[in-house]
């Protein structure tokens, strides 16, 4: 266990930027520095193993100064965009700048990048002006997603996260899982469908299960005014531990499609007419009664849905067995 692990386990807060529990320790941002008694310089708590009897100080004036300096350096090459940034309120840089009283004006003449925001895929935008080079996206892609699509390119001041030969994501091997987006601690990577849909503090978070494949990934639905505006993976949850795939993360808006069926429909010739529930239910019940009377219960058959909730399938088979008196009930994926 590292010093950071021990601290967190015991409820002692140490700020981090590049650290993420799902990733190997990295030690790049140095915001997690602490003083260890007997050591000459402060050490990065995310990388140093804790030892028996070690005396650690996490909040000395010297540590606080060092942390503020790190944040101020980052701010010196960072756009002043918190007012309209999608990440505001959930951004680690913003949070620490406030906490340490760090101001951009400390290094007014620092050189500034001016990258064009990259909008090369339908699901997320990359604005590397806001990137703090913590490497979380790069490491998430490699260590968690297992795909190694992105990496650091260039050197020194020009270092930037990039796809191979800086072609767009669509041309790369990227599977658009967005796991890198979820790991970004600042507003460099943001979900496109969520743009201007609500501030982080306005969202209610609802935990649910993905509606696509049988893995059963756990999701947070970020809900504003009864509408899902973003989906993220639930950290430390079984089975997905924060991960999602492209469908689970970005495939939620079908429920808001204009094409949804909104009212019962009854066939009239070649077309359908809108009906009330009572009309449609009565018609169905009468018709099935008539068929059962004439041809017996086994003239009725039903196919249930392998996507809808258990309770729906349960009630459907109960209807067929206990009401219609037939076992002609199946679903589509018997395998």
């Amino acid at each position, binding site marked *: 266990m590292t010093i950071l692990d021990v601290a967190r386990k015991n409820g002692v807060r140490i700020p981090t930027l590049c650290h993420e529990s799902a990733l190997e320790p990295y030690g790049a941002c140095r915001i997690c520095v602490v003083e260890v008694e007997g050591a000459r310089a402060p050490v990065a708590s995310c990388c140093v193993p804790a030892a028996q009897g070690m005396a650690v100080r996490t909040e000395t004036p010297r540590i606080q100064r060092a942390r503020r300096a790190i944040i101020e350096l980052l701010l010196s090459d960072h756009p002043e965009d918190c007012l309209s940034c999608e990440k505001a309120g959930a951004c680690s840089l913003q949070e620490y700048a406030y906490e340490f009283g760090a101001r951009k004006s400390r290094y007014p003449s620092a050189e500034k990048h001016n990258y064009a925001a990259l909008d090369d895929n339908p699901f997320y935008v990359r604005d590397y002006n806001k990137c703090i080079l913590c490497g979380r996206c790069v490491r998430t892609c490699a260590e968690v997603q297992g795909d190694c699509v992105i990496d650091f390119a260039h050197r020194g001041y020009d270092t930037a996260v990039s796809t191979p030969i800086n072609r767009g994501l669509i041309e790369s091997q990227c599977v658009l899982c967005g796991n890198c987006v979820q790991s970004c601690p600042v507003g460099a990577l943001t979900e496109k469908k969520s743009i201007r849909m609500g501030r982080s503090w306005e969202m209610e978070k609802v935990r649910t299960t993905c509606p696509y494949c049988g893995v059963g990934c756990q999701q947070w639905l970020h809900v504003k005014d009864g509408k*899902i505006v973003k989906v993220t993976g639930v950290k430390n949850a079984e089975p997905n531990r924060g*991960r999602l795939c492209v469908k689970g993360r970005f495939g939620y808006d079908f429920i808001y499609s204009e094409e949804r069926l909104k009212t019962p*429909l009854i066939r009239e010739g070649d077309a359908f007419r809108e009906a009330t529930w009572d009309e449609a239910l009565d018609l169905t019940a009468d*018709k*099935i009664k008539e068929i059962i009377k004439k041809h017996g219960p086994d003239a009725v058959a*039903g196919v249930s849905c392998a996507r*809808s909730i258990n309770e729906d399938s349960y009630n459907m*088979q109960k209807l067929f067995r206990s009401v219609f008196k037939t076992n002609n009930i199946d679903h589509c994926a018997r395998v």
Partner: protein
Amino acid sequence: MAGLATSFGSGAMTNSFNEFSSAKLFLIIGSNMTEAHPVAATLVKNAVVNRGARMILIDPRAHRLAEFADIHCRLNVGSDIALLNGIMHVLIAENLYDKDYVENFTENFEALKAKAAEYPPERASAISGVSADTIRAAARMLASANAAMVIYTLGITEHVCGTHNVMSVANLQMLLGNVGLKGGGVNPLRGQNNVQGACDMGALPNVFPGYQRVEDAAVRAKFEKAWDVKELPGKEGLKSPAMLELAKSGNVKALWIFGENLANSEPDISHVERCLESCEFLVCQDIFPTETTRFADVIFPAAAWSENEGTFTSSERRVNMTRAASKAPGAAMPNWWIFKQIAKRFGQEWKPDSAQEIWDNEVSALAPALAGIKYHRLTNDGIQWPCPSIDHPGTGFLHKDGKFTRGKGLFTPVDWVPPAEIPDEEYPFVLSTGRRLTHYHTRTQTGRCQGFDDVLGEESADISPEDAERLGVSGGEKVRVCSRRGSVEVKAKVTKEVPPGLVWMAFHFREGCANWLTNAAFDSITQTAEYKACAVSVEKI
């Protein structure tokens, strides 16, 4: 699930996803995990890359997982049993199998031994196209690991011999002593979020909820009492392909299709549409108009995912909550409510009036494996069945210590049979089908989410560079793919993923949907269709 149910006594994933990351050796067969079960695939990739696990991949296609495999058996489509029998032949001939396990926990080994003897690696190789040396190497690698975990998907079940394929996999794992321990087992990944749940709930023609057989009078008496009805039917009902067939012949008069787009997802679309058309009374219950609802007499609008509370059961037998975040549009109602209203019109008043009441008061009261699962316990990670009592933590892996649900594990020797339709002069290619990452099923969902059609906007036919050259097609050019049942015109995608002689397609788009071509030939036991193999011709347009 008939295959696993026969071999082990229980037809579900034996182990859990969280064991993937610590498994030492994977045998992945007929599973394009990176596209169909992407997050599960990340766990496998992590084990291989970050922790040095090994992988044997059995798949005709060199899809993305192949990059991670130590051994890739690129077998001919539909030759799985021959290959597996070949591997078992080596294990037995070289004395590499787990004798203690076989002796103590299984039965019918002699029959398996005799069958495997018929498949020396050379014969298995001649059928499967995988070299005899590779077969030997795979067998030895399997024997060298403490435990190996088998993962499979529809690649082996969607064949006329699907059930036998599964039994064959089960045979292999029992032979290796790999069932009933962490990091082992036989693990079918379910394609849809609640396939497992639909089975558990008894949306099957032969069982009540909790796999309690309809033929069993005591079981029927139990449900008659619980539901307060008389004379529940004891005869096994129809499976869905038979329902369609009988709708066409006029024996099934009323068909109720809930949330499935059969007109795109079943093999041989033209045939399915004729069946739907001829049905006297068709009820559809869905969230969208689909190709199937066109044939309906009544359509019920349903609430969708995130519009009402309930539970899904994932592949790993985990019962998870799904919760409401938004309101259903218009007059759409929860599906369970709709069924309840019909029951009422037949004079039955069902008490439960929410998903929670249905689960807590009926489902978990009636299905012994779910008895300990109640909504108030499902706050975090859900619970994996079997969970027989309220203080039971749930079960991570089944058949612990070789104690199979059915008693002893049953070896069921099986023979290789070719697919129902094999290539000939007129239709010289094998067509195999599956899913692609960015879409899901017939796109009723992903086709209505922003962005997905931008990434993948149409169907394509994947062919090998060798075949492309012979046919004079380059990537992006249109080809016509024909089978005995229909033809489609799609763009060719030239890729080394597919071997020569194979065409690979998906069924996400109505236009160019592979199911205009696929063969409605079925596994005799499960009635699962052979989506994975039929014969087609390909020509440049």
